[in-house]
């Protein structure tokens, strides 16, 4: 309950934004790879799913 008292400090908090940026870059590259790693046939098949 008294969350604030568990730890008194963590050094190097400034590394958080760097970690965050790296994480996002990883996710973004993963999405790009996912999207462009798929064959045209697969993509076409999937984009037409609402019409089947």
């Amino acid at each position, binding site marked *: 309950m008294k969350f604030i008292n568990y730890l*008194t400090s963590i050094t190097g908090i400034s590394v958080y934004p760097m970690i*965050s940026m790296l994480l*996002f870059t990883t996710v973004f590259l993963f999405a790009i790879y*996912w999207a462009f790693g798929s064959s045209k046939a697969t993509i076409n098949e*999937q984009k037409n799913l609402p019409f089947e």
Partner: protein
Amino acid sequence: MNSNIERFAYDNKIVKQFAYATILWGAVGMLVGVIIALQLVFPALNFDLAQTTYGRLRPLHTNAVIFAFVGNGIFMGVYYSLQRLAKARMWSDKLSRIHFWGWQTIIVLAALTLVFGFTTGKEYAELEWPIDILITLIWVVFGLNMFMTIIKRRERHLYVAIWFFIATWVTVAMLHIVNSFELPVSLLKSYSWYAGVQDALVQWWYGHNAVAFFLTTPYLGLMYYFIPKAANRPVYSYRLSIIHFWALIFLYIWAGPHHLLYTSLPDWAQSLGTVFSIMLLAPSWGGMINGLLTLRGAWDRVREDVVLKFMVVAVTAYGMATFEGPMLSLKNVNAISHFTDWTIAHVHVGALGWNGFLTFGMIYWLVPKMWKTELYSRKLANWHFWIGTLGIVLYAVPMYWAGWRHNEMLTQFTEDGRLQYQFLDMVNGMMGFYALRSLGGLLFLVGVIFMIVNVWKTVAAGNFVANEETEAPALAKNVTIHGQEHWHRVIERKPVQMLILALVMVAIGGIIEMVPTFLIKSNIPTIAEVKPYTPLELEGRDIYIREGCYTCHSQMVRPFRAETARYGEYSKAGEFIYDHPFQWGSKRTGPDLAREGTGVNQKSNAWHYNHMTDPTSTSPASIMPRYPWLLTGKVDESMTPAKIRAMITLGVPYPEGYDQQAVTDMQKQAKEIYDDLKLSEAQLLLGEDGLAPDQEIIALIAYLQKLGRDIEVANNKTAAK
């Protein structure tokens, strides 16, 4: 050819039920919106009744529009599209019905509890703990039905719309559970588990992502289904939709702290919120462009087809709102927009344009389909479109203007360095904008009434197909893979893996932002002079929460000259450590109250008494409602010990056994205020019951007089040294 063709029927009845609920609650939510808009212009419309006062109706409006109108709209669209994309009837008709009636029960309970003053005091999460539990149960019913339908599907691949539905379900579950941790004191009263800065961070992590994962991702899923269906052509780029999905769900969750810029939230968390909000522009616009370009080569049809008209404006409004959002996350822009009507304009472009118009487009497309008939009147639907569009413009433009004007007036200084305007000068300058906004909202509502007539007539002329017969080949149990297969195609087929991956994506941002704020002491420097509320102040605070004072008053002085000159010293994180829940607010229709009991803002008890009874008696032209029931209502002393015990459980350092002492102390403090008021009784605007120490108004005065006091004591000590 697969010879194993199975015959089955789609359940349209559940879609119909959710469609009717969407229309009904939409009209109710918007009507309440028009009423509260008019209350700001004509305060008499508060009717001096607790249940119809702005502070109680405003949460009713926001909850009705978000969770009743858009919520039912989501379910309407999901139940229709999911069955067709999965080529399967919903797994369980019984669960579908439990979901429908359960959700409507929640809405009715929410409406009743909110107007009767049972609220947690956390924006967009105001519902009390039993309703929170009911929401969780019904959400699980929805999820179970959805997942079992996906598992029992006859189409191997999950279309991108279903990804959005899965991410919506898992993220809303996470947000709702984390933000709803509260300690019950009675059946309809609880205190937030978190306090102050931590409560604010959790609340806006929730609040922002309620926008993201309740108002946006499910509607993006619906956009990816209904726009291609209405335009009769596949989505512009399926590859872009994949990137859109993963980038959006990963980024959105980080952006919450942009609601807390220049507040007492640690700086690094504010910066992180800003950076991710700006990055969010890319996937948001990727989605918008994908939606609009789906209509490439079909723009001529937009002129004729009212469904497409609604959808094009919806996606355009999404683009506008998601461009504006990142801009509002810049600290220099946020300094102007925050606490003003600019934010109100921003959210209504999203709510009226994106959610409203996409919902209307879906309804106009679905109703003729399910009733096997033509729309009763295209002309009336076109009227709806144009009057609705005009309504949005008439709503948004005055509110943008009002936001700028608000900021301009309150930041101006005279040549000799004094504030140029009183807060009330600004309020009076808003009246024209507020009147125009009411008209805009009214026009939007008139459009909805046109839709109700149109749907009514269409339904009357058609024949509803409750069970739509269809057939599809059964799904082969074993997948035959020809050649090499990419790893992600496996995930695309597996909904549970998709759910876990989506949960991991959305959990990362929340964990990185929240864990340090909870664990690192240096993030919330304590101030020795900040003391827990006395029992009377605590009771007064509960009245403040009950009346929804936070809907118009902030308690957060930002570190700007114009604010410190008007209100006093800027707010520190350590001031709020006993605030369960925090009451920083998000809009200043009235002035900030963080320093109400001290410095330039300090007023006498008698002033507060008269101000609550009739605000215009102390502040001519004030638009604040009157609170006559505070003169007749008595503080319920039987609850006070339980409240103190709850606070002790939450870590507030009252002495051991203080719950037994609390009522005596409360009566003593109330008597002191009573005695002080008695001295100026002749000037008091007394109610029928006269003056008494146990009146609710006395507790509220005690709370207001406490605001800012501790920090004043701390400063005096520092000065003495």
